[in-house]
């Protein structure tokens, strides 16, 4: 076996999940410390949900279908997007830049843990906390008021799988942009780019609404794997026949992002250990 292959297998062997889950738990508990922030964030999410719901109701007030999408489907897409917004919102890029700048990244590299994987699990803790503390209440209220309905169990299961993949893709994107931020030495431009990423991921509008050329661009970028695909599955936007192919394409994009992420990380580590902090 080549050097690369042996180290890959060794890495997999070292992947002691239990150790990393500790970080997940710690980050989840961190959310419990901040009460005031929680209520404020909950209010913010509620407000955005109200705005989205009202807006789409008004948009559809005169028509039954726009770009081939009807109101119930659109609503499901948008509202489920709101429910999972906390889960699929990732400040991972904020962790890398400051660490490198302040030099604390040295401590992380010395530890017997893979920083990349560690951050993945750590962020997961925060994401889960937001999902449970903010997403869940909103979900329940939407169910009770009838604004959201539960689809069949098969769709739910496929949605969960898709959501998990969406998270991994999101994390990888954030991670990559975080490392890039360090190399470009400025945080501000990247922030604005991120809004573009969000737009292309279908966070504001489903891809069906994009004009032809934009749709093509979005289809050939990994970002739709973050948001569009899971929400499309849940809302039924993806027809029953297309779900599988949709998931497969999501899997491919996720894998690509993970590999890219890993490559950039290894490069960064080499750069840091050779050049110094």
């Amino acid at each position, binding site marked *: 076996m080549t050097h690369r292959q042996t180290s890959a297998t060794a890495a997999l062997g070292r992947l002691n999940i239990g150790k990393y889950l500790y970080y997940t738990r710690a980050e989840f508990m961190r959310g419990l410390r901040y009460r005031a922030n929680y209520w404020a964030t909950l209010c913010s999410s509620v407000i955005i949900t109200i705005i989205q719901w009202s807006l789409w109701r008004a*948009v559809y007030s005169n028509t039954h279908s726009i770009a081939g999408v009807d109101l119930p489907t659109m609503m499901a897409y948008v509202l489920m997007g709101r429910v999972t917004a906390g889960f699929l919102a990732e400040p991972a890029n904020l962790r890398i830049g400051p660490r490198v700048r302040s030099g604390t990244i040295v401590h992380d590299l010395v530890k017997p843990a893979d920083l990349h994987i560690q951050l993945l699990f750590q962020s997961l803790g925060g994401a889960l906390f937001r999902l449970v503390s903010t997403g869940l209440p909103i979900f329940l209220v939407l169910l009770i008021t009838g604004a959201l309905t539960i689809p069949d169990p098969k769709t739910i299961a496929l949605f969960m799988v898709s959501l998990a993949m969406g998270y991994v893709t999101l994390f990888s994107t954030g991670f990559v942009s975080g490392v890039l931020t360090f190399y470009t030495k400025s945080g501000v431009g990247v922030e604005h780019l991120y809004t573009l990423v969000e737009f292309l991921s279908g966070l504001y509008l489903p891809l069906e609404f994009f004009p032809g050329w934009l749709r093509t661009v979005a289809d050939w970028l990994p970002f739709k794997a973050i948001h569009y695909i899971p929400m499309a599955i849940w809302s039924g936007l993806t027809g029953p026949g297309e779900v599988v192919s949709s998931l497969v394409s999501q899997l491919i994009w996720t894998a690509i992002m993970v590999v890219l992420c890993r490559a950039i990380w290894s490069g960064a580590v080499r750069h840091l250990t050779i050049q110094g902090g």
Partner: protein
Amino acid sequence: MSDKRNPHAESTGRTRKNTWLSTPRPSRGLSTVWHYVRLYYWYLRANWLSLMAYPIEFIIVNLSGVAYSLGSVALVWVLFTQVKAIGGWTYPQVLLIYGMSIFSRSLFHLFWVNLMSLSRMVRDGSMDRVLVRPLNPLFQVVADYLDNDDWGELATAIILTWTSLGMLGKRTVWNILWVLVSVISGSLIFASVHIVANAMAFFTVESSGFSWLAWTVDEFTRYPADIYDRVTRTVITWILPVAFASFYPAQLFFENGYLKRMALATPVVAVLTFMVAYRFWSIAVNHYQGAGH
């Protein structure tokens, strides 16, 4: 006695030209206002000089800012490639409301954004420095830094408003003046909301959520207020009157506009809201001085 008329306080000599108490106090009323206006100029000047220390960054940041705001309009534009009207309002009308909303918002952002540093200032002790100066604390916090990477949004707002007014055929001098009055009032209303939200920093260390909440409340104003349900509409008209930042003043330009009398109340609402916000701010500062953090 904690009384200004304490003879002991008086005898510490303002009558003579003592070196250590020679600073004259500005008397109440108009001369105080003038004092603050003049000071604001000096703060602005200091900010401008700081800015010019990094000219390239200024340009880059603002260029990307323009791209960003144009992008946010894209949402509305894309929508309107698919539908003719939203909730009874046509494309130019929705565009005008959107434009005025971000016009108010960018004016607020430009002058008042340093409110967001409040949390940091409390944490690192800069707030103490503010309280040791013979100036209104809110003034100091706000004047200390002007946001200089949001000219993009302002530019977009002006373009949008100008365009949509043209589309409606309402580009007259009076209308433009009204737009200016409205967006200035609107920015004052936004400022009030953010003052209250950021003043939470005086009560708790974790106030970033409230700051974000204030920005979220601003989002209501991007779209016509009557798309919202009754409860929401009441809240954004009477409790957090952000609807006066875009929707109500814009009614004056629409033939099918209603509640035009509400529109005229806009500046009054702005002033009243600010007064309420300032009261909350004062309470918050007093609490900080008691609790200390």
